[in-house]
C-alpha cells in the first residue's frame, strides 16, 4: 500500500504515490526526462507488490506506451502513462486514437521543450502542441496540486469517458522537493469509484471499437467529441468542489483568481510560474499597483465564458506563456483574445521561459510595471538576448553558407558547440 500523510517529498515521487492510490491496473511507460522519476517510482511500487493488481508494461517507445494504454483501457482496465517533450510527439497519432475512441486514460506530461535544437528543460511547447488532440488538459501550479489533480483526473476521465492530460512543469515541479499532503487510500477510494467502462472489449460480448467512419457520420462523431469535452466545463468545477469537501483543500477547477477584484492589470498564466507571479503581485501591491492574476487550470476545454467573466473588469490583460506558436505568437493569448472578443481590454502577450530560461521575480517586476505603464507592445519576448539574435541575423545576411543558427549562437556565447570554425 502506498504511503500517505504529510511528507517532504520530490514532486515525481508524490505523483507516483498518488497515482498508486488511484489503483491503476495497467501502467505502460517509456522513460524520458523529466518524467523518468515518476515511472521509476511507479515501477518500484508495482515490483514491491505495493500496487496490486497492476501490470507495469515496459514498452519500446511512447507510441507503444499510448497504444498499450488504449488496449488496456478498451478492455476495462484503469490505465496510466506519463511522458514529456519528444515522447509526447512520438505518441501523437495514438493520442488522437485514445480521445477519438473515448478512452479514459490519465497521463502526466512533465512539460519540457521540443527540439530541434535538443533541450531537456521546461516549457509548455509539448502539451500545447497537442491542445487540439481531444484530450482534456489540466495545468498544475505546485506539487500539492499535482497530487490533488491526479486524483480528480481519474474521476473526470472516467465520468466523461475521455482521456485527461495532467501537465506539470518538468524539473521545476517534478524535481522539486516540497511539503505535500498525500491522501490516504481510504480517502481516494471514497472519492474515486471503481472504473465502470462506457464501452468494453470482452470475448463474451464481442463489439467493435474503432470502425471506419465515412463522410456520412464523421462530422457527427467529431461534433460529439467536442460536445463531450465541453461538458467537462461543468464537471471539472463539480469534481473540484467535491474534492475540497472531502480533502479540505482547494485544488484544480477551471480558473483561480488572485487579487483581481480591483485590478487594473491582470496577468494570465498557467503552471508553476503562477506562484512566482503571486509573490511579485504582493510586492507590487504594497507599492500601490492594482494588479492581480488569473491562473488557468483547465486549458482544454477552454473555459471561454469563465475567462471572460474573470477578466471583465480588467482594462489591461497580460498573458504570460511558456510556449510559442511560430508564425503567430502566443497560444494561450489567442484563446484569451477569443474569450474577450468585443471588449475594450488591452491585451499583451509575453513569451517567457522557453527551453528553461529562468523567469525571475526581477524580470516579472519589470515586465508588469511596463505593462501597467502602457509601455509594452502586442507581443514581448521576455529576456530575449537581442544582441545574440542580431549578430546571427547579420551573419546570415553577410554570407550564404553562414551555418546553423543554434551552433553559431552557442559559439558566440563561448559554449562548446559543433559546426564549422570561422
Amino acid at each position, binding site marked *: 500500500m502506498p504511503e500517505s500523510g504529510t511528507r*517532504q517529498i520530490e514532486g515525481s515521487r508524490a505523483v507516483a504515490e498518488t497515482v498508486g492510490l488511484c489503483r491503476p491496473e495497467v501502467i505502460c511507460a517509456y522513460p524520458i526526462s523529466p518524467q523518468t522519476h515518476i515511472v521509476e517510482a511507479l515501477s518500484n511500487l508495482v515490483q514491491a507488490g505495493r500496487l496490486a493488481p497492476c501490470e507495469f508494461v515496459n514498452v519500446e517507445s511512447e507510441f507503444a506506451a499510448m497504444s498499450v494504454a488504449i488496449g488496456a483501457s478498451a478492455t476495462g482496465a484503469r490505465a496510466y502513462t506519463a511522458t514529456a517533450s519528444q515522447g509526447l510527439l512520438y505518441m501523437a497519432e495514438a493520442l488522437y486514437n485514445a480521445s477519438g475512441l473515448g478512452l479514459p486514460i490519465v497521463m502526466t506530461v512533465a512539460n519540457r521543450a521540443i527540439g530541434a535544437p535538443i533541450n*531537456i528543460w521546461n516549457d509548455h511547447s509539448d502539451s500545447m502542441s497537442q491542445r487540439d488532440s481531444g484530450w482534456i488538459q489540466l495545468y498544475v501550479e505546485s506539487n500539492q496540486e499535482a497530487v490533488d489533480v491526479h486524483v480528480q483526473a481519474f474521476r473526470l476521465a472516467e465520468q466523461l469517458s475521455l482521456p485527461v492530460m495532467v501537465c506539470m512543469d518538468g524539473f521545476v515541479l517534478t*524535481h522539486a522537493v516540497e511539503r505535500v499532503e498525500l491522501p490516504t487510500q481510504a480517502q481516494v477510494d471514497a472519492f474515486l469509484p471503481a472504473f465502470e467502462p462506457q464501452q468494453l472489449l470482452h470475448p463474451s460480448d464481442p463489439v467493435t471499437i474503432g470502425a471506419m467512419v465515412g463522410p456520412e457520420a464523421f462530422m457527427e462523431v467529431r461534433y460529439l467529441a467536442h460536445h463531450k469535452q465541453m461538458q467537462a466545463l461543468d464537471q471539472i468545477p463539480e469534481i473540484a468542489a467535491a474534492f475540497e469537501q472531502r480533502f479540505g483543500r482547494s485544488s484544480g477547477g477551471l480558473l483561480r483568481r488572485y487579487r483581481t477584484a480591483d485590478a487594473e492589470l491582470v496577468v494570465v498564466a498557467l503552471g508553476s510560474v503562477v506562484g*512566482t507571479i503571486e509573490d511579485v503581485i504582493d510586492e507590487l501591491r504594497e507599492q500601490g499597483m492594482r494588479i492581480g492574476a488569473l491562473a488557468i487550470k483547465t486549458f482544454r476545454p477552454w473555459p471561454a465564458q469563465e475567462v471572460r467573466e474573470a477578466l471583465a473588469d480588467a482594462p489591461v490583460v497580460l498573458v504570460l506563456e511558456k510556449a510559442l506558436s511560430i508564425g503567430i505568437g502566443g497560444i494561450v493569448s489567442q484563446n484569451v483574445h477569443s474569450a474577450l472578443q468585443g471588449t475594450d481590454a488591452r491585451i499583451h502577450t509575453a513569451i517567457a521561459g522557453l527551453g528553461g530560461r529562468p523567469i525571475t521575480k526581477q524580470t516579472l517586476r519589470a515586465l508588469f510595471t511596463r505593462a501597467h505603464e502602457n509601455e509594452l507592445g502586442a507581443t514581448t519576448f521576455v529576456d530575449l538576448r537581442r544582441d545574440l539574435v542580431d549578430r546571427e541575423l547579420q551573419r546570415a545576411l553577410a554570407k550564404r553558407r553562414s551555418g546553423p543558427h543554434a551552433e553559431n549562437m552557442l559559439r558566440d556565447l563561448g559554449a562548446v558547440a559543433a559546426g564549422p570554425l570561422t
Partner: protein
Amino acid sequence: MQVEVRIHGRGGQGVVTAAELLSVAAFNDGRHAQAFPSFGSERTGAPVVAFCRIGDRPIRAHDPILAPDALIVVDPTLLRQVDVFGGLPDHADVLINTSREPDALGLGELGERLAPGRLVTVPATELAREHLGRPLPNAALLGAFSAQTGAVSIESVIAAIRQRFPGAVGEQNVAAAMQAHRHLQTRPRALQRGSGAELQIGQGSHA
C-alpha cells in the same frame, strides 16, 4: 521570515541530496521548505548548484535563487572557477568547506563586504573522512550550517540524515554532522552570534 540557500558543488558530491536533506530538516522543524536542483545534464565533476527555500508560510515561488541569504560551498576549488558569490547580498551567511581559516582563502573583498563573522569555514571533508572513511562532506556541512545560521535545528538535521540513510552509514554521517556542529559552536565568532533556535539570517527583502 523566508531564508534562501544556494549550494555549490560538483556532480557526484551529493549537492542535490544536501539541498533535499536541508529541506527535510526544515520540514522536521515544522516549517515549509522547497529544495530543487539547477537543472541540466550534469556530469560527474561538473559544477552543480542546488537551492533550498525555508519559510513559515507555504512557498509559492518557483524561480531560481539569485540573491541567497546563505551560501554553502561544498567544493572550495570552485571559488576560482565559478562565480559562487554572484548576487550575494551583504547580509548573507557563507559556509565554505575547507580546513583553512576564512582569512587564508584570499577572499578579502568578500570578507569586508559581508557583515562581521558571516564568512565561516569548516573542514567538512576531513570530518567525513574521519567518520565515514569517504570524502562526502554534506552531512558535516549541514551540521555546521545549523550551528552557523540556526535556520534548521541540529536535531532535525540528524533526523533527516537518519531518514535518508538508515543504518551504519546514517550513523557515521550523523557523527560527522554533530562534530561539525560542535566545531562551529566552539568558535568564538559562532558563539558571539549564538546558535540557538533564533533565526540569524535573512535580513533582506523577504517577507
